[in-house]
């Protein structure tokens, strides 16, 4: 498990990092290294140079931006789990992040790395999608913002262009919503076979709005639009919710792999979506 040779730089500014990346299309950004290092060690990636973002000020931490919470790309999973602003306004993100791997990985891995890596089995992309987060990006051409619905393009592929760095994720505050992240994995530290990020808003015992994002049900995270529509206006009660959840896999195209075949994943998505929504709705 010895990685191939590569150059290593640790620029002090974002501009410098973007400069290096723009000049060398085989350079790779290093955040927490929890996904990149395994790839290097298996020799599945062989970048010429690795650009460590760790020394760049301002990429880490959580800020209140009125209607949004801004989470710096280099904020670690551990920090997300323990941040009071996130707890107050984006509890779903904290809950999902708590299920990521083990404490060692959570202390190093970052939210930006998880999003940029775009593993459909990762727990956080589905949350970002369900909550309609926005991705703030800086590249050779300046800054831009990409909505979650456009950020995840394909398996391990995002809308990030060569030379671009993800700097932060802006998440709309979820005040007044209730939520639940339901993860199904074979062992405590394994990746999700299926995960469901669910949030609901209730008025007088009825669900007025629901958001559902699915983990590992396709090559990208999946927004379960059909369930969201089916939930609108139904009573926040188990029977009605489970009925609505029957369309949970409508938008999905799940893979068959070692941990599950597609038909079982579809079944799980329906069951787990029902459970996640029911938990979120307190029923």
């Amino acid at each position, binding site marked *: *498990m*010895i990685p*191939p*040779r590569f150059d290593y730089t640790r620029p002090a500014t974002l501009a410098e990092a973007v400069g290096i990346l723009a000049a060398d299309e085989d350079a790779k950004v290093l955040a927490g290294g929890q996904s990149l290092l395994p790839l290097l060690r*298996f*020799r599945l990636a062989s970048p010429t140079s690795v650009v460590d973002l760790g020394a760049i000020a301002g990429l880490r931490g959580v800020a209140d931006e009125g209607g949004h919470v801004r989470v710096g790309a280099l904020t670690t999973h551990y920090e997300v789990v323990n941040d009071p602003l996130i707890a107050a306004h984006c509890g779903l993100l904290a809950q999902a992040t708590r299920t990521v791997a083990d404490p060692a990985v959570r202390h190093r891995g970052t939210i930006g790395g998880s999003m940029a890596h775009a593993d459909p089995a990762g727990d956080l992309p589905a949350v970002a999608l369900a909550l309609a987060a926005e991705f703030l990006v800086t590249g050779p051409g300046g800054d831009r913002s990409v909505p979650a619905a456009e950020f995840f393009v394909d398996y391990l592929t995002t809308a990030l262009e060569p030379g671009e760095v993800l700097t932060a994720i802006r998440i709309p505050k979820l005040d007044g919503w209730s939520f639940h992240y339901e993860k*199904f994995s*074979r*062992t*405590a*530290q*394994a*990746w999700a*076979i299926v995960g469901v990020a669910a949030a609901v808003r209730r008025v007088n015992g009825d669900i007025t709005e629901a958001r559902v994002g699915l983990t590992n049900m396709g090559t990208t995270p999946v927004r379960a639009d059909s369930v969201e529509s089916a939930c609108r206006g139904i009573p926040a009660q188990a029977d009605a919710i489970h009925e609505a959840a029957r369309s949970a896999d409508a938008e999905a195209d799940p893979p*068959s792999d*070692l*941990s*599950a*075949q597609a*038909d*079982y994943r579809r*079944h*799980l998505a329906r*069951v*787990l979506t029902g459970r996640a929504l029911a938990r979120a709705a307190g029923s």
Partner: protein
Amino acid sequence: MTTTPEAPNLGRAQARKEDARLLTGRTNWTDNIRLPGALHVAFVRSPLAHARITGVDYSAALELPGVVAAFSGADFADEQGSLPCAWPVTEDIVTPAHPPMAVDEVRYAGEAVACVVARDAQSAADALEAVDVDYEPLPAVLDMEAALADGADLVHADAGTNRSFLWPLTEGDVDAAFDGADVVVTRRYRQQRLIPAAMEPRAVVCRPEGDSFTLWSATQIPHVLRVMLAMTTGIPEQDIRVIAPDVGGGFGSKLQVTAEEVLALLLARRLGLPVKWTETRSEGFQTTHHGRDQIQDVSIAADADGRIRGLKVDLLADMGAYLMLVTPGVPILGALMFPGIYKMDAYSFSCTGVFTTKMPTDAYRGAGRPEATYAIERIMNELADELGMDPLELRRRNWIAHEEFPYTTIAGLTYDSGNYEAATERAVELFGYSELRAEQERRRAAGDPVQLGIGVSTFTEMCGLAPSRVLGSLRYGAGGWEHASVRMLPTGKVEVVTGSSAHGQGHETAWSQIVADRLGVPFEDIRVLHGDTQVAPRGMDTYGSRSLVVGGTAVVRACDRVVDKARAIAAHMLEAAEEDLEFSGGVFRVRGTERPSATIQEVSLAAFAAHDLPEEMEASLDSEATVDPDDFSYPHGTHLCAVEVDTETGRTRIRSYVAVDDVGTIVNPMIVEGQVHGGLAQGIAQALYEEAVYDTEGNLVTSTMADYLLPSAADLPDFTTDRTVTPSTTNPLGVKGVGEAGTIASTPAVVNAVVDALRPYGVRDVPMPCTPERVWRAVTGVQDNEGAAQ
């Protein structure tokens, strides 16, 4: 377990003296050994399951920085010999040649075809990509039944068959037993392939010293390895020293003579420099021998009242591509254990060893006995269901009663002792068996989507491997004795040299406890030496729960001889007759008098000075003993498992687990507890989590820990453990062995619980591992894309 004033150490939960260095890693793991000038080896491995090698070109690798040499199998064809199989179980067994580096043909993905040697590990790893190997693909042979069919593609074309051997056994009139039966239950069980996954990867270092060699290896068997290296390479045995430094687990996977060990020796000889190799985790998953992999066809015949009449077992055992050290012996070790703890009139067994293009299988924790125990304990539950009888009641009607010991089983083994009633009674009480059955009824009646299942496993196993005469009769190439020597140093401290080779078991602590009581010296004054053929020249190493039973007995005998010598000198010192001396707590006293006494330390110093020794007495108390056990020992126990199965998702959660084991006398309850916990984890892992999967081309797809699921503490329940103590009568300590018990007992306990939960849905089996998907398919009948309903 209580200690006594005369024996204050035996039975004490003494903290392990080796743990500080093992847990902090501040010790000599093989990979920590840095020798000046050492070269690093990396292996080019076949990406194909089966192919002819048509060319190996390493010239480009030789050009790379740091690379010193490269070799193909052909470059060593004249000297590398064939990796040994020490257990040819039948006279006409097919044992194909097994070159450490493939020369003409590769027969499993991962087989070594070439190697590069470089100044550092990084350069060696980089150079692998520069070695060009041309292959002409041959058909992969993956399915055992297809492999035995007429016209099947062959793993070894020369052999003309994929069958390695057929090993039959028949006792009693099997036809009569089945013909007259009221009930016959027939099942097919599958022992999936497992990856032992010891915490420390394999590693080897070899240093040439003139014409001789020192080889360090992360091995369980330094002594056997030395003999085999000499026999394989022709290097004289006296010129090879093998050292197993601290070794981080093996579970049987380091009970092997590996290609990399042989090649390290040959490379060191060829290059005249030290060489080193450490496997990567994925390399280890692919090329460290695998475990289990059997198809078991089992039939049991019984009377209507549940009395067992007969048992038939037909096994297909996947050997993989070659026979390694004890590959064919593993299923044969199980042959005698299928009848378990039960009385019956007739038994037949046959095992066919089958070649496939996969990594060879070999010993893995339990080796043959978990497979046997699984089959009998699973089918006992099915028989109970067929008869409408509680599975515990069926067992009570058939097990050997405690007053019937010693008892010779239908398979011909004589179980020396046991008390199945006591262990079961205790387990039932701790488990709350009837309360859980009542809850199960309630949930069934209510149609609860989360069903409760109760699993039973009453098991025994043969340990203390092994009487040499028995091994000989089973055609094993070596004996089963063990050796120990005990040296009293001039200052009264003690060195114990053992032929056992601990790799995590805690022998240094347990042996010290035994010696401390036997010699009456402080526990702290004892040092246990092992794992180096120069320091501990005689030994048979550690596997098969043998070390305490056989090696511990050798330690006891050697201690007794030390005391005998000391007694003679003490008598001389105290001017008394030997018969008048009593020895206790390390002090010789003249019985019934107030006369001066002599401590064993004083005697030791007197022996060293040798100024005034009795006539003909040598100036040493040192003694040794080689012990060949009279018979096996038979630990047993009752394990009960309660699971909750979510029928909507298929998820199984172990709610409670009770293990009551009888491992005879207990030297150190803390070590016993640790062995039971670790064993349970591995047995539960087979039931629920682990499976080595090859794809249709013969590539191992579970090649990382992300795909091969080893459970962690977070996945396991709190274990409730207890013990009954029925000492073994086959050794002076009364011990039976505990290294494998948890693994053997727990797999059927868990699967029996899963199936029990699902019986209302018509489920009679769930193949292992009982993944949520398989459970869901079993419940719903939805077929997978290979057409299996579960």
